[in-house]
Structure formats: C-alpha cells, structure tokens
C-alpha cells in the first residue's frame, strides 16, 4: 500500500507541487555541467572511434598509430586518451589536427591535446615508443610479454575502441594472458581475436564504448615462431623405436 505523508520536504527533496527544484540539487548539477564544459573532449567535439595500432619491433620499441574519428568546431581544443607515457614526443606526428601536445594529468595519466583544423576529417597520430617491451632475458619457452593499458582520462566518451597489438616479425602470439574488457564465460563473443596484419601476428581488442574513466588493457605473451630443429628428429626417432620394439604386434593374434 502506498502511504503519502504531507508536511515539509526533507533537505534537498523536491516538494510535491513545487514548480522548481531545491537549491541543494541545482548547485551540484550546475557544477557538473560547468566541469564538463571545461574538461570535456571539447564543448561540441564528439569522438566516435578510437583505433590504435601498436607495431612492436624486435628491439622492444614500438611504432604507434592512432586513428580517431572526431568531429567538432574548427579551432576547438580536443583532449584524447593517450596510453603512451614513455613515448618519444619528438617523434609525435599528427595529421588532421593542429598544435598537438601531451599533458600529464594528476596521477600521471597522459592525455593528448589537439586543436581541430578548419577541414573536418579523421585524426591520425604517429609516435614512437623507444622501450615498449623491456629488454632483457626472455622468459621460459622464449616468451616475451607485451603489456599495455589505456585509461580514458577525459570527460567524454571516445566511442568504439579498437586496439591492434602486432608482435615483431618472426614472432607469434602464444597466449593472451589477460584483457580488459575480459572474456566472459557466458558471453557470445570474445572481446579480442588473434589477427594477422601485413604478415605479422597480433591481437585485436575491442571495447564497444570507451567511456570516461573506462580502462582497456592487454597482456600478451609472444615467442619466436621457429621450433627447435631437434624436435622433428626426436619424434621420428621415437616413432621408429616403437615400430621396432613392438613389431610383434604386427604379427597377428596371440
């Protein structure tokens, strides 16, 4: 049974019959709107796609390409998530936007700030990361680990995220250790797939909507594609030995 009480509304509660909201509700809402106007991707800028490709080299460096679909007013400043704090900014090249720069937010998260050019079009960013995979001794089975994460530290959604992580030539993806978004046991599709781009193996990770504060991450183990040359010989020897040692089996019923 629904019970209604008459009387003075509680602090911040909208009084029945009142034609305007209470001040304690209006002030935080106003603050949020203002904050979004100041810190968002831009007042009217919209990002609908954020694709990045990371091509690893054998020396552990990586060539990063961002392909971002952004629309807004020419001259508008746009903030974009940027997951490469260790990038060599001297190599930063941007097509489709002006005056790019990387800013560090409190807590160390980098964001890429660009100004939209007069002609609308996709934004392409290229940069090199000198040490993407730490050099050093490979782990068991010759594995090396590619680890990457990106946090959308802006206040606007970046739409569909697609990250492609390509391992060096002559290497293969061995296992996908973890991803964010993670694979769900009962989900119809996986958020990642193993791909081959220009003859190089890699992993593609998809997040349908890279909303503010959302994180995407991948940890991938990769190793040399070549097998030990001794292995086929060993198999052959074991097979031959069996055929010799158990030749009585071919001799009919006992």
């Amino acid at each position, binding site marked *: 049974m629904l019970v209604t009480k008459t009387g003075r509304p509680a602090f911040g509660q909208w009084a029945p019959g009142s034609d305007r909201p209470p001040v304690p509700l209006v002030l935080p809402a106003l603050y949020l709107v203002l904050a979004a106007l100041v810190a968002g991707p831009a007042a009217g800028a919209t990002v609908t796609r954020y694709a990045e490709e990371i091509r690893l080299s054998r020396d552990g460096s990586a060539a990063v390409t961002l392909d971002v679909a952004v629309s807004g007013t020419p001259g508008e400043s746009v903030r974009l998530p940027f997951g490469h704090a260790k990038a060599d900014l001297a190599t930063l090249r941007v097509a489709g936007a002006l005056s790019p720069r990387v800013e560090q937010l409190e807590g160390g998260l980098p964001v890429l700030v660009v100004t939209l050019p007069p002609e609308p079009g996709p934004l392409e960013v290229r940069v090199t990361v000198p040490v993407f995979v730490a050099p050093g001794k490979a782990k*068991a*089975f010759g*594995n090396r680990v590619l680890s990457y994460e990106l946090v959308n530290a802006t206040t606007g959604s970046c739409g569909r995220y697609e990250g492609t992580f390509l391992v060096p030539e002559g290497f*293969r*993806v*061995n*296992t*996908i250790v973890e991803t964010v978004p993670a694979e769900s*046991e*009962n989900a*119809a*599709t*996986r958020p990642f*797939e*193993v*791909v*081959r781009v220009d003859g190089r*193996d890699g992993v593609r990770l998809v997040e349908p909507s890279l909303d503010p504060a959302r994180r995407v991450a991948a940890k991938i183990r990769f*190793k040399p*594609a070549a*097998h030990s040359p001794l292995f*086929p010989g060993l*198999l052959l020897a*074991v*097979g*031959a030995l*069996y*055929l010799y040692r*158990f*030749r009585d*089996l*071919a*001799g*009919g*019923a*006992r």
Partner: protein
Amino acid sequence: MSAEPAVRTEQQNREHLAGLLDLSKTKFSASPKGELTPSERWMRYLGFPGGLAVFAAVFFAPAPAGLAAAGQAALACFLLALVWWVTEPVPTFVTSLTLIVLLVFLDVRPSDDVLGVLGLDVIWLNVMAFVLSSILIKTNLAKRLALGLVTRWGTGAIPTLLAFLVLQLALAPLIPATAARSVITLPILLVVAAIYGASAETPNNVGRNLFLQSLLGINIFSSGFMTGSTANLIALSFIFGMTGKKVYYSDWLFAALPVAIVAMAIAGWIGPKLLFRIEPENLKPRIAGGMEAFREELARLGPLSAMEKKGAAIFGVVIFLWVTDRFHMGWFGFEISPVLAAIVGGILAFLPRVGILKWSEADIPWNLMLFSAGAYAGGLALDSTGAARWVIGKIFAAANFGPGTSFWPVYMAVIAINLVSHYFFTSKTMRTIIMIPFIIGIAQQLGWNPLWLALPSAFTIDWVIGLPISGKPNVIFLTTGQYSVLDNVKYGAVMTVVGILLFWVFGFTWFRFLGVTPGFGG
C-alpha cells in the same frame, strides 16, 4: 568366452549363478582386458606412429592466421591423444598423462592450470559415482534390481536392452545430470551383463549393446527435454539473450523428444542387428535352469536386509537431491549441485556405524580419473587457446554462406557441423557457448529467424556419443571393460550419421509443421 561345462548339478548351477552375480569380485580399478583381435593389434602398432604423424603435421604446419601458437600446439596435442585413445597403443590413462605433460612442455597452458583439472567438479563427480555404485553392489541392491528387471522383462537380450532404454527415457526428465543417471544404472547393467555372460574378462556383444545403448540413451534422451542438461538451458539463454525469443518447455519437448525416441529406436536396432550382432547362444540368459534359476535366486535374496535398506536410504537421499534441484534455492537458500549431492551420499556411506562402506570397499578406478583429467585438460586447452573456436569458425567460413543462400542447404550444413563438432569438445557447455552464438549470427546475417537454425542446433548439443571423452557417462561406462574405445567410436560414428539424417528429415517435416523451421509456405 569361458567354456560351459556340459552337465552341471543343481548345486553347481546355483553356485555358478551366485558367482556370476557377485559383483563384489568385479573391480573397476583392475578391469582386465580381453584378447586382442588381429585388427586391434595392427591398430595399436600403427596408432602410435600415426598419432605422432598427426601431431607433427599440425604442430609443424605453417602458422595459420587467427590462431595463436598455443592454440596450434593444443590442437596438435589433442589430435595425438585422440588417435592414441582410439587405437590404444598405450593405456588410455597413459595417453592422458602424456597429453598433460605435452600441454605444459609445449607452453600451451601453465602447469598449475593443467594439473588443477584433477580438482574439477566433473572428476569429483566421477569419484563419488563409483562410491555410490559400490553401495549398490555391496548391499546386493544392484543384484536385486537387476534380477527383478530380468525376471520381469528378460525373456531375452533384446527385451532387456529395450527395458534399459525405457528406464533411461524415464530418468532423463527427472535427473538432469547425465553422470548421475550413469551411476544409478551402472551396477544394474553390470549384473545384467553378467547374466548374459558378459564381463570385463569375457566381453560379448550383449554387454557391448547393453552399455553402449545405455550410454547413447542417457545422452540422446537428454536432448528430448529442455531440462535434460545444463547445456540445453545455456543454449536457450543465448537464444533468448541474442534474439529475445523465448522457448517453452513444451516447445522443446514436442519438437525434440520425437527425434530422440526415433534415434534410440534406430540405435536399438542397429546395435544388435548390425554393429554388434548378438550371437544366438547369447540371446537368452546363459544359465542352466533359465529364467527359473533367476527367480529362485531372487527369491533367495529374501526380503530387504537392513544393509539394503540403509543403502537404499542413502542412495534415496542422493537421488532426492538430484531430482529436486530446482527447489533447493527455496528450501535451503542455495543450490546443491549434483556433485555435492553425491558427496553427501559418500559421507553418509562412510560414516562409522551409520554408513555401510569401508574405504577399502569403495572401488574407485583412479586410472579412469587420470584418463578423464587428461581429456578435460585437452578440452580446456582447446577452448582457452581459442583453437576450438578457430576450427569451428574455419568450418563455417569454408561453408561460405552468403546473401541469397537458400535456407535448407544452410540448415543441413549447420546440423551436420553441430553433430560432428562434438568430437572436438569434452564439454557440452563450451560447445554450446561457441556454437550457438555462431549459428544465431549466421541466421541474422542472412536475414532469417534465428530460431530456425539455433533451436534445432540446440537439440543436437546432448548428442555427445562419439568418443569416451565426449561426455561423463562415456567415461564412466568405459571403465567397465565391457567394450573398447573402438566399439564406442564405431557405434558413435554410425549414430552421428543417423542423427544428421534424422535432424534433416525432421527439419523438412516435423519441425516445419511445428514452425521450428520455416513453414511449408516459407
């Protein structure tokens, strides 16, 4: 087969029958193997290098696009194990141990993951299954039930086979866990097989038919009921989640149960008439004195002993928990899974003074547990590395269903792929998770009602009949030594083909009539 003495005294007959039915002497953990036929010897001889050759062909093949190195290695290891499990150049559990080691040595999965498979609930269920079987055997309940069944139905081997199929059909809607149904019937099957002269030492075609048909019945009848297995419900949740279309219990029952019944009728004919012809001398129980001897033996058991009552009570508790699983949440505030229900039974059975078993009397075939663990480790590796998904994706891609394709070729291909795909999985759940979304995607891409393909595909999920590793009942029954891996492969392959043909025919007719597939105007 042991030679029967020409003349026996009545006393000797009685002793012979009592010895035959005394299953306490039968040890699952030490099932002896019968004599090998020449073709089996050749299979063993060539199976070992054959497995290595298959392994090498996959492992050293050029890296295929879309498949991780671990996935390719998992596929190679699994195929090697598959060849060895079928041809048995080494015991099946040794193949499993080899598979476990290879998965770690070839960097497919970390050793903790691979070795941890032995702790999976399916292994626990297998262990407890044999504890529960031991209760039925020790208390003579299995003997009483089997003698009751044989004296009532057992005018011959064929009616007995039929009786077990009816039993499996009756149990399927009551107990969703297929392993549980196997446990209930296993000891009774053993006694009945013994009555027809079939044992691990002297397997014959009655035993082969009895166990393999029961295995088929347990699996295939599950497909007739929406609640026949968890995988059925997962398939339906995918269908509902991805298409918003709800399938009711009766929809499933009317469509799928007739297929299951016809399939088992065919299986009931193919087994004894074609694949494992029952020798005329085995068509009747191989006991001097015939049916009268069984009646006498049953009468000699007398009324239920205290031990039998205790055993029945313990088993009753477990069956009650299995049957009432849907009410657990309301009663207890949580659900008791089939494995935990079996463990409860195990606790009761081993309780001093209350229980009826000593640890030494629980006949647990650990070789089977190792065999299962290896099989599951291989299956999980195929899944976690994406290899199973990759294989299925490649098969569907090869079928090349494009716009303009008419429905029926796609339906036929999807059904065939679904039924054959069970050879690459050790878990129905995983198969469902991979296959059903694929199929819904194909239907949506081609602009069809997804139910037309997804629901008939869901009906095939429980058809896990091809290999001893395909399902829990398959693993449990293999331990009896009443049939070989090859026997399972033969019957399973034939019935898989029968299943494909049946689902095609039902798709064109009965499913159309019910609206499961496009109607006669569609």
